[in-house]
């Protein structure tokens, strides 16, 4: 569906995303995961063509859907309240989204808006379409923005930390809704998150990023069960649900800043498996057991 090759994003000559290649398959949920500053949000913005003007992007994203934003690729906004206009009825906003990409009559756009609200489970959708956002509950607003993002049946949906501020229960509700709606319209979903539990529960594949590069890419079930990259293994080991002792394992040190990357593998200074080679040569992603692993010692895990 989308093919990203050697994507690089730099600010003031400092590369923050450093040569990322991956595909988004039709209909899948692909999670971009990693710690703050790993470059996952910037990667998602590049797919949408929404990088800030001062960012310098190289590499290819094919097909380039950014010119068809709203129609073939759509963003699910993080904040449902600020994503909707307070001064127009919800149904009008959805109908406007339809008419911004398709030449249809007002009546047709209106009918599609009501159908979309109905599809996301808003009761009495024809009547609720005439309501303003402030007349919706928080949960209904969330549903309305998902309806908005999916109304033109895009090929790719991008959700950037859609559940960061939510508790587990609401997180699962929102992600269930998103994955259901993705299925209903046949879109792929790219989910950007640092919530590893949400990834385990809702994503098909995970792209684990570290310091702007791929650490590991593979089916969530396999990666979570047997992480091959030491970074992935270290990250998963930190989760309390995976703890075998009272004391939780942590990754030593902190992630490097983009302007002061260590030579060789960026994770090497924090890695228990690092050897002299790791400090010298940056590992390239290699096929191991049906996934991609960027580690000189990945196959020995």
């Amino acid at each position: 569906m989308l093919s990203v090759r050697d994507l690089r994003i730099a600010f003031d000559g400092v590369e923050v995303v450093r040569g990322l290649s991956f595909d988004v398959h039709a209909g899948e949920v692909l999670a971009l995961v990693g710690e703050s500053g790993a470059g996952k949000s910037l990667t998602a913005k590049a797919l949408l063509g929404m990088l800030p003007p001062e960012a310098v992007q190289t590499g290819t994203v094919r097909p380039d859907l950014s010119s068809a934003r709203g129609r073939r690729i759509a963003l699910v906004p993080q904040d449902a309240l600020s994503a909707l206009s307070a001064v127009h009825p919800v149904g009008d906003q959805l109908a406007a989204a339809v008419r911004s990409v398709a030449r249809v009559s007002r009546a047709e756009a209106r009918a599609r808006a009501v159908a979309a609200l109905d599809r996301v489970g808003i009761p009495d959708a024809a009547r609720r379409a005439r309501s303003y956002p402030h007349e919706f509950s928080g949960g209904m607003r969330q549903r309305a923005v998902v309806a908005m993002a999916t109304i033109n049946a895009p090929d790719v949906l991008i959700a950037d930390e859609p559940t960061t501020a939510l508790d587990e229960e609401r997180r699962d509700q929102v992600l269930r809704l998103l994955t259901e709606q993705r299925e209903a319209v046949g879109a792929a979903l790219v989910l950007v998150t640092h919530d590893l539990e949400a990834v385990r529960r809702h994503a098909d594949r995970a792209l684990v990023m570290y310091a702007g590069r791929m650490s590991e890419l593979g089916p969530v079930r396999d990666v979570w069960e047997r992480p091959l990259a030491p970074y992935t293994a270290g990250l998963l080991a930190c989760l309390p649900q995976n703890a075998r002792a009272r004391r939780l394992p942590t990754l030593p040190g902190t992630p490097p800043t983009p302007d002061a990357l260590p030579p060789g593998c960026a994770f090497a200074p924090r890695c228990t498996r690092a050897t002299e080679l790791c400090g010298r040569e940056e590992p390239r992603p290699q096929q191991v057991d049906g996934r991609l692993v960027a580690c000189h010692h990945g196959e020995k895990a």
Partner: protein
Amino acid sequence: MRTIPLLDVRDLVVRYGAVTAVDHVSFSLDAGETLAIEGPSGCGKSSTAMAVLQLRRPDSGEVRFEGRELTGLTEPGLRPLRPRMQPVFQDPYGSLSPRQRIRDAVAEPLRLQGLRPTAGQVAALLDRVGLDPSYGDRRPHELSGGQCQRAGIARALASNPRLLVLDEPVSALDPSVRAGILNLLADLRDELGLAYLFICHDRAVVRHFADRVVEMRDGRITSR
């Protein structure tokens, strides 16, 4: 003979207008114990924490700390007790003043008691939470989220408390940073005999960290 619990909350009620956020909540906490209150957003767990600390006066009910009833006390009456029960909040940046240097933020609870902490005392507090004392010269925005949360914990420890009220202290943090903070809190609990009232919506964290868990929903405790 039964000892007096460190914290004993009876029939606590907090209302915001017509909304009852905390609806006759009762629990107790012994010295050195960690009790977690778990529940979804809006269940009343943070309001409970604020009412325990008397940062938001409850509408009715009792809060006994070290055997003393707090709800009837005036603010001057509470002042000598405040150092013994300290909060740590979720947003590490929001809970420290952006203009204040870390060493001043950490020393503040002692200054509020009329004490004059020495540079050595502040350095020892920073060291205690795993921060190099040189961080004392920095301001919050010059620290990472995890470092900032450590500074918040150092500040809470400054006045030698017996109870920390931790309101989602690790919810905004990356997994490894979160694990480090949970380990630190566990160490402090063991070494200083601190009791924790731990407010958290993350089940896995709660199960791992707490001695006891009560679940809250719609202002009430639904299971314990």
